[in-house]
């Protein structure tokens, strides 16, 4: 069991605007440079489309749009983080992937209530590590059922 604990602590740090976010390494399938994205009509605005990830068609979510942040032009630093949770595989577009670090459990604090933005829902906690404020994301929430339903509703409406 020690193995999983260790794995749990390893996190990927990525950049979104001014903030640094982290997700556990065990959910990450890889970090990719930007691929050509094929738009999928009738889906939510944060679903940018699908890419060909070595033969697998993978949906891509723009995390900036997902969190209601202003979108920016993709650039050299832009990365796609491939994430899999509960048999769902998607890619997140982020401003840049920074680091892989060990995040001890005791460094994580429950998310502060004051944030009050939409992002709040998707935050599992906040870690303060050597003056770096790292936001721990709840992947399942980001890919929740409601959102899938919403995607479907939108697609039906447009039909």
């Amino acid at each position, binding site marked *: 069991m020690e193995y999983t604990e260790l794995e749990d602590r390893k996190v990927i740090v990525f950049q979104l605007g001014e903030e640094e976010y982290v997700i556990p390494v065990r959910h990450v399938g890889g970090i990719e440079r930007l691929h050509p994205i094929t738009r999928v*009509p009738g889906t939510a605005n944060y679903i940018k489309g699908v890419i060909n990830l070595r*033969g697998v068609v993978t949906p891509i979510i723009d995390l900036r749009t997902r969190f209601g942040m202003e979108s920016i032009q993709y650039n050299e630093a832009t990365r796609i983080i491939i994430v899999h949770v509960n048999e769902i595989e998607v890619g997140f577009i982020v401003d840049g992937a920074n680091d892989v670090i060990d995040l001890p459990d005791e460094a994580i604090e429950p998310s502060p209530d004051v944030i009050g933005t939409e992002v709040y829902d998707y935050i599992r906690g906040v870690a303060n590590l050597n003056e770096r404020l790292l936001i721990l994301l709840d992947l399942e929430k980001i890919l929740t059922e409601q959102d899938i339903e919403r*995607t479907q509703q939108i697609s039906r409406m447009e039909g």
Partner: protein
Amino acid sequence: MDTNQYLAIFIDESTEHLNTMSDYMLELEKNPSDKSIIEEIFRAAHTLKGMSATMGYNDMADLTHKLENVFDAIRYDKLSVQVDMMDVLFEVHEQLLAMVEDIASGGTGEQDISHLVNKLDKLEKGAQVDTSSESSAQGEKGNAKVQNERSMSNLDEFELSILNEASERGFSNYEITVQLNEDCLLKAARTFMVFEVLEKHGEIIKSDPPVNDLEEENFDFQFKVLFITKYPKDELKKKLKKISEVSHIIINPFSTKTYKKAQEKLETDNKAIKERNKTDEKSIPNRSGRQVSKTIRVNIERLDILMNLFEELVIDRGRLEQIASELNHQELQETVERMTRVSGDLQNIILTMRMVPIEQVFSRFPRMIRKLSREMEKDIAIDIIGAETELDRTVIDEIGDPLVHLLRNAVDHGIEKPEERRRKGKPEQGTIQLKAYHSGNHVFIEITDDGAGINREKVLKKAIENGIIHESQAHSLKDQEVYELILASGFSTAEVVSDVSGRGVGLDVVRTKIESLGGRVSIDSEQDKGSIFSIQLPLTLSIMSVLLIEIENETYAIPLSSIIETAIIEKKQILSAHHKKVIDFRGNVVPLVFLKDIFNVPKYSDYEEDEYESIVIVKKGDKMAALVVDSFIGQQEIVLKSLGKYLQDVFAISGATILGDGQVALIIDTNALVK
């Protein structure tokens, strides 16, 4: 003992044995006295017992042990096959299947089997009671001798007790053998006359062959009856002789003791038959008659990997073709062409390798129909044709549920209850025919029942009530269109909600499923004659031919199977009807579907307003639509990929594919666009 390494074999083999068992059990129900069938079942049960005990699945071993005992009793005539008994046996069989499934999915196969064990014990005990009374009867002193080579057999307890009682009250029991003239034309009539005479003088307990067979003349020229009377036998003989075309009458006294003796003899006869069967089996080792060809078992996963690799190859082939035509290098082009041909052949071989007979799916249906029809108190036979028809494994995996649904529907709403069928002048036993066959690039599966058929008026009424169609449309609909309304969502015609199919889900799930497999369902029906549900499916799902089209800078694929033709029309040919744009296409008014609007394609270039439109005419059943696109790219073989779990049910998109340049193109689900 570490049994893990044998687990896969155990599961495979037990499933096989269970299948054999159920096949033979169904067979046994039809021919309850066929000893060779019982032998087969016994052997399967025995093997299962051994295997499960070795593997340490005790519950399964217990259950099969009891099962084996019952079949053993049947085998030695201690028990006779009856419907109630078959019910228990089928129940046990289902339980065993569930156990194997549980084991296959990592469980222990342990389940509460006490009630089944009880039932089996009772069955077996019933046998033992019989045996004990038999042996005591044999212990009695009696001067009876076996009168006839082929004496009456299979008397049940009730009949025996009547005979005993009758002789106690001073009646005589006779076994009367009647031989008709060999040139007798109306055997049934003569039999009837014999019966009439007898019934005036006493009571007929049993006849051999049974009365039904006698009425239908299913006998040679001889039959026997067991008869209770007070009249002396000479008088009876005289009376019977008076009936014309009767050649011989043999009247012998019959006693229960005689019967026991005869049974004893029968048993030795059976042993002899068994011996014979054994030697028969030696000469024909594979009794089931399946053709034995040289095969090897390949793990399905490996085939899937092979298929995936080949799909990659198809994508690269597309890329190579593209490069070769761009470079315009002749030798390269020739090589690529050759490679395309070879890989085409390879594709065919791989696809056929993945084909499995639909029998896999069909094999569980006889059992299911049997169970359902008993639950619904209907008498239904199932007739399976073309079980050897092959389909891609991916389709096989998906087709089971829709078929179950349609069959349940046929049992529930199709076939009438026996009394109703009699009233309509149909045989009491209803028939459901399940038929599979290949035609072109498609496989057809038809479910035909000889039941009540679909009532057009009822369907229309319901459809209007549920707002599926408008009253004004009702009369213009063709019969077939009306029948297909029952596949619309929110439709269910059952007057009484039953366990079987009236769960409010309706047949629309069937249609959705079939259409997601790229197939279609059609229905035909005739009042009081029955209905036909016909499913058309593509042979394979993973590779298909498409037309690639372009809208702005986006590329989409339209399956060739749904395209009627492509055309370029002048803008002024576009007409307006009810605020909808339509065109007149070969005499049909076809609505235009602007894909640019449906898919909200962002504007890419300021292309000049053209006076022409490129259209793709697609069909769904009899209906058509004209999809407006910017340009045609060309026809291509593509590999179908799903959009993944996260993006399910995207409107009008059925999947995606990877093009030669590595980009993803979406496949348009034209069915969603034709209204």
